[in-house]
């Protein structure tokens, strides 16, 4: 038997509800029965749900939600899932060797707001990673040491507090056969994201950006 994994789905419930529904439905379909813990700011029907209340959208609060989910989970690994991201089936099948490393998927794209093409984001991101649960929890416990419970003002946690760009100073990359992609909307926590700015019209699995955007964001098949 392989190591156990839990999907942690975190959301501040700022996206359009029907868009989030399609994101969640995609996860349910392709994640092959992996347990899901959802941690949200409004109650949602998705896996085991824990609602923290409307504490505001910020990096600090997002990681606080993740910290709570890591405390609830019991699996060896935590797989990240965010409310504006589309995941292919193979994202959920990768199991790393080491429990004390953050593994990020380098097959990652972002679709900018109001655009129907993709940008590549090879460095990976928090929303496409798998991390040993205890390691993730220990790391967050240290970063939150002495902090108050919720901080909607700290958008770029842990930067403001620790002068540190990333929760994990060291990450390793893996590469799924099919990419993960994130649809940026102005409702998300961050409007801008670092990526290569060369427009890509079509990516494996998800295909043409216009079709993917119409379907996942607006529910229209064209």
């Amino acid at each position, binding site marked *: 038997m392989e190591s156990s994994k839990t999907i942690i789905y975190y959301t501040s419930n700022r996206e359009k509800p029907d868009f989030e529904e399609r994101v969640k439905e995609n996860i349910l379909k392709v994640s092959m029965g992996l347990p899901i813990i959802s941690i949200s700011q409004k109650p949602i029907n998705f896996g085991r749900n824990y609602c923290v209340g409307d504490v505001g959208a910020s990096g600090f609060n997002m990681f606080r939600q993740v910290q709570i989910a890591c405390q609830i989970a019991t*699996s060896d690994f935590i797989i990240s899932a965010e409310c504006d991201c589309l995941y292919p089936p193979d994202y959920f099948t990768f199991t790393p060797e080491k429990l004390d490393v953050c593994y990020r998927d380098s097959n990652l794209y972002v679709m900018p707001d109001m655009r129907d093409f993709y940008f590549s984001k090879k460095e990976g991101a928090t929303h496409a990673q798998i991390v040993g649960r205890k390691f993730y929890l220990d790391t967050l416990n240290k970063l939150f040491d002495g902090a108050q419970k919720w901080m909607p003002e700290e958008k770029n946690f842990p930067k403001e507090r620790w002068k540190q760009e990333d929760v994990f100073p060291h990450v390793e990359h893996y590469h799924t056969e099919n990419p993960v992609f994130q649809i940026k909307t102005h409702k998300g926590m961050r409007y801008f994201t670092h990526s290569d700015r060369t427009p890509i019209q079509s990516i494996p699995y998800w295909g043409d950006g216009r079709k993917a955007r119409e*379907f996942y964001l607006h529910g229209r098949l064209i």
Partner: protein
Amino acid sequence: MKNVMVYVNPKKDFDRESRFLVKFQIDNSFQLGWKEDDILLLTNFPYEYGGIKATIVSNKNYCDFRPLSVKTITVANSKLDDCWVHDIDAFQLEPFDVDLKGYDLGCTDYGWSTKWCLGSYFYTKRAKDILEKIRDTIYEIHNEDERALVHLTSKGLFTDRIKKLNITYNMGMRNIEENYKQAEKPLRVVHFHPTRAGLFDKFKPILNDRILKLFRNYGIE
């Protein structure tokens, strides 16, 4: 009725899990009384186990952007008699003889969603045009077979030819407790990855002694 499984892969071989699953499926099918001639394994490479020789199909059935829809595309491209079509991780628990009562195709939903699920379905020769339309729609909308079928039926197409079957014919990995309550007993088909951590334990309480013994023979308990 035939028992149809499909495995088309550009590597022309089973992956590790599928190599075990296909053997398990063949053994399971024999235990349930299926005859050699009624078990149809469609692959794009030669394979034989337990007297079942794979029927070779074209590599063109592979769909690189939706590998999980390969089964439906292959069925659409094949000439099949009435059959039960299922994923190789959808396991029959009890013998069944499904009467579609004049409908051409019988499918379940997910239980947690009323949308079509195509992991285990009953096909008649009359449904060939439906499968072909699903296949064409997969390419048109660049999405999966189930989404294609939802797209078609939401436009009113084929709705009078597809029978929604009870979830007993495809108990999936989500919403197990609730789906089990809704399922006709004895349970007919369970659909899960027995080697994935935690899943076998989730399904164990609803499996019958026969299949539990077969899993034990394969080292899963």
